[in-house]
């Protein structure tokens, strides 16, 4: 990992939960109260902005949230609204919005929030509120929504006159009123939806408006969903505010999405586009134990280990003796059976409890193997523990073995049994020692031969070793594949195995014709067992996964050994060619996606609490241009604008109308969600791509799009003529009823023509 250490550390952004408010919502001191001073309220689904229209900015901006908090001690229910909901953790977590999507569903909350607003604005009430009011409503809002507003404003708050208007049109009005451009397009990216409204000669053409049911809230939720799927085991749960923070601060609209996606996950691009988020956490430090305590613990462990080892040794010994006896007996049987007719062999074996010859072979093979292993182990241990001198002493102790039982006393018989046991183990040890020496000798010979070969003909040696290595690696791969396939019940391998099992379990004997053909039992050419690999068949992976793992481990050791030799002698074989280096996080798309352009240390508590934002940064804002990414079967902003400009208002794709050309020069972005960086540039790119080259384009966004709407209201109120045209008086409401709509240039129009 030496080449990783040179990499500079990445910048880490800590994303904390929203801090609690320290100050409660202020009460506005209005001084001399004037009941003719109009009030504007932009009742958004994210924030409420409210204030007197003769000011340039709203007096109050607070989240559209309300908490009913039950104080059990004083047995009272308190209501917290707006910024006051953020004074306390519990109050904040219980806060709710009156909106369900873009539609108001809880009018009791609205009533409370409105009352709270008037209260904080310092309104002097007199059987209701007496100021004129300007309030927003959604584009093409439901009639029931307007009815409820009428009811609340005229009946509950007893307002004398109210003007309704569409928030995005207020923003457009605020931004373009001074200019002489009368045609344009408003793209309103709000919290709950995205609207596109064409404007011709200062009149909104509501019949041609389009709404995409995707807003900032959806984007934040989408981000939270994809991050939870990306890090399913993330140790802490993030609040919606933290996701919101990430969305606002790290997401941006890509200028060219498909092109940027192509090389986003390459190392050098990630270097500056990958964002590391760390969530605050409390580090747990392991309490340090005193040295004495550690010592005591170690000693205790050692003692227990020793005892257990001894017990295990005892047991092993007993088993070994038993196995040796068995082996001797059956080898004897085998020798006797050589040359006997088939039938006799079978009956002898079946009497001994075997199914057939194959079963016997298998049994013997396994026995032999385990015996060898046990002896080897035994010898190892013995070498470790004892000197050879002990063995000689033992020799003298086996004096009772050759004396028949009848000549011995009871105690001696017991002693004899013990001696027999000890002798057996001693013999086994001797045997193992010999075996070991023999193997060591063989190995030494092979090593010398290998060395000679290397020294005389390096190239052929390298070639041979490389071939061996490749074969080993391939075998390992196949094994891993086999294991994976076995896990999957539907895979071909697993199905074949099931088929075999089913065949074996079949009760009916094979047909006569088959019986006379060579079968596994009587095939003279059957060489099964001659090759060590053949016995792998019995190492069924599904039944004995440990053995399989062991096998893999052994193979891996072999590979490493070979690689070690090649590293030493083959000048073309470098550290990077080894199996371990084959998996390099640099080449792993998944690693780069999940962990960014640095290696990952899963033990580091900081890294455990980190998220990496890369593709998400552009994926989330892209939904406005391709709503299908987020599951909305709708066209995106660009496509809707294209249709509007090139096919409507007298335009044909080949010949754009004057109106359409003017509209392209005056595109305004409003709404809180339009603050996503680079959105303006992207819209410019999109317009450029569908307009004839050289067409002048103007796309604008104001500095604080979320306040524009309220400012538009305040500006609107300065124009007395306009205001009077739009105002609905209580008298009119009482006369025309809740279906009444007063059409004006910034408001909704009638539902029907």
């Amino acid at each position, binding site marked *: 990992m030496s080449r990783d250490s040179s990499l500079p550390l990445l910048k880490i952004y800590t994303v904390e939960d929203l801090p609690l408010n320290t100050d409660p919502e202020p009460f506005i001191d209005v001084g001399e109260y004037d009941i003719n001073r109009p009030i504007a309220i932009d009742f958004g689904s994210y924030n409420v902005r409210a204030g007197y229209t003769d000011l340039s900015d709203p007096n109050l901006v607070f989240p559209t949230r309300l908490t009913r908090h039950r104080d059990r001690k004083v047995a009272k229910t308190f209501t917290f*609204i707006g910024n*006051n909901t953020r004074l306390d953790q519990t109050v904040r977590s219980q806060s709710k919005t009156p909106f369900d999507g873009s*539609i108001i569903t809880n009018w009791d909350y609205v009533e409370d929030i409105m009352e709270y607003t008037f*209260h904080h604005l310092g309104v002097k009430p007199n059987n209701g509120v007496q100021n004129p009011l300007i309030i927003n409503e959604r584009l093409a809002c439901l009639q029931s929504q307007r009815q409820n507003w009428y009811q609340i404003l005229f009946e509950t708050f007893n307002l004398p006159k109210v003007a309704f208007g569409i928030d995005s049109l207020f923003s457009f009005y605020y931004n373009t009123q001074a200019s002489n451009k009368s045609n344009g397009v408003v793209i309103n990216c709000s919290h709950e939806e995205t609207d596109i409204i064409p404007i011709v000669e200062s009149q909104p053409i509501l019949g041609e408006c389009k709404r995409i049911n995707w807003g900032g809230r959806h984007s934040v939720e989408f981000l939270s969903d994809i991050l939870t799927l990306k890090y399913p085991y993330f140790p802490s749960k993030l609040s919606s505010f933290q996701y919101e923070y990430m969305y606002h601060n790290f997401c941006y609209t890509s200028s060219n999405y498909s092109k940027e996606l192509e090389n986003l996950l390459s190392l050098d691009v990630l270097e500056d586009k990958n964002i590391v988020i760390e969530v605050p956490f409390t580090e747990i430090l392991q309490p340090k134990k005193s040295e004495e305590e550690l010592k005591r613990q170690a000693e205790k462990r050692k003692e227990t280990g020793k005892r257990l080892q001894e017990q295990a040794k005892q047991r092993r010994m007993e088993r070994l003796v038993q196995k040796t006896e068995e082996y001797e007996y059956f080898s004897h049987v085998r020798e006797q059976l050589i040359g006997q007719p088939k039938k006799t062999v079978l009956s002898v074996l079946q009497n001994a409890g075997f199914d057939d010859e194959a079963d016997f072979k298998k049994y013997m093979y396994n026995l032999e193997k385990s015996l060898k292993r046990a002896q080897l182990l035994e010898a190892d241990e013995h070498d470790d523990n004892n000197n050879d001198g002990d063995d000689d002493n033992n020799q003298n102790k086996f004096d009772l073995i050759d004396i028949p039982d009848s000549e011995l006393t009871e105690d001696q018989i017991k002693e004899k049994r013990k001696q027999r046991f000890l002798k057996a183990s001693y013999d086994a040890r001797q045997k193992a020692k010999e075996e070991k020496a023999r193997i060591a000798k063989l190995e030494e010979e092979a090593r010398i031969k290998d060395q000679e070969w290397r020294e005389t003909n390096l190239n052929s040696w390298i070639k041979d070793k490389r071939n061996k290595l490749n074969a080993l690696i391939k075998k390992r791969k196949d094994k891993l594949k086999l294991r994976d396939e076995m896990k999957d019940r539907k895979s071909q391998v697993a199905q074949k195995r099931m088929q075999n099992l089913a065949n074996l379990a079949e009760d009916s004997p094979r047909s006569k014709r088959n019986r006379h053909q060579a079968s596994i039992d009587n095939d003279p050419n059957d060489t099964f067992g001659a090759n060590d690999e053949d016995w792998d068949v019995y190492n069924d992976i599904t039944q004995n996964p440990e053995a399989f793992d062991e096998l893999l481990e052994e193979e891996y050791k072999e590979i490493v050994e070979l690689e070690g030799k090649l590293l030493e002698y083959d000048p073309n074989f470098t550290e990077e060619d080894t199996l371990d280096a084959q998996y390099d996080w640099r080449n792993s*798309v998944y690693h780069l996606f999940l962990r960014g352009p640095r290696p990952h240390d899963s033990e580091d508590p900081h890294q455990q609490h980190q998220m990496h934002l890369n593709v998400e940064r552009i994926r989330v804002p892209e939904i406005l241009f391709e709503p299908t990414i987020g*599951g909305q079967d709708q066209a995106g902003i660009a496509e809707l604008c294209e249709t509007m400009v090139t096919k409507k208002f007298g335009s044909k794709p080949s010949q754009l109308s004057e109106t359409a050309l003017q509209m392209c020069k005056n595109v305004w972005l409003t709404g809180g969600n339009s603050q996503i960086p680079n959105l303006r540039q992207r819209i410019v790119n999109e317009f450029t791509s569908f307009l004839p080259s050289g067409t002048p384009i103007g796309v604008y966004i104001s500095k604080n799009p979320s306040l524009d709407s309220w400012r538009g209201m305040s500006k609107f109120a300065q124009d007395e003529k306009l205001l009077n045209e739009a105002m609905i008086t209580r008298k009119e409401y009482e006369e025309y009823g809740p279906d009444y709509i007063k059409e004006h240039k910034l408001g909704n129009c009638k*539902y029907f023509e």
Partner: protein
Amino acid sequence: MSSEARLEYLRSIATANVIDSPSPYKSQKHQIKKKVNRRNKAARQLISDEQKRINGLLEASVSEENTQETCKRLVPKVTYFNINAPPSMKPPKKYCDITGLNGPYTSPTNNIRYHNSEIYQLIVKPMAPGTDQEYLKLRGANFVLK
């Protein structure tokens, strides 16, 4: 701040916001009337109500047209429904459900789109049952049991 002091502070804030009852901001007449028991309908319900209302009005105008020659037939101009953006005319691009990169391949078992064989091996193939639906839900392609 201790929890008791905190509570006391919250109480003081709440008390400062309490408005007398009957509220001076509201019409006396309205408050004397028995408080309306509003039913809070969900947004979906409200939208379908609107649909019913519009359809009802249209039907009424059609039947009226049949009886009276002079009456003009109603044409919807701007409603919640007809400003809804239409589906895209362009072929949808395919993106990897896991990473968001291009996703040219589709898993035969669970319809997850994926970027390359590595993503398939690491994520799509060993995916726990149910997780695939979570991924598909992102682009609205999950199964919805009704």
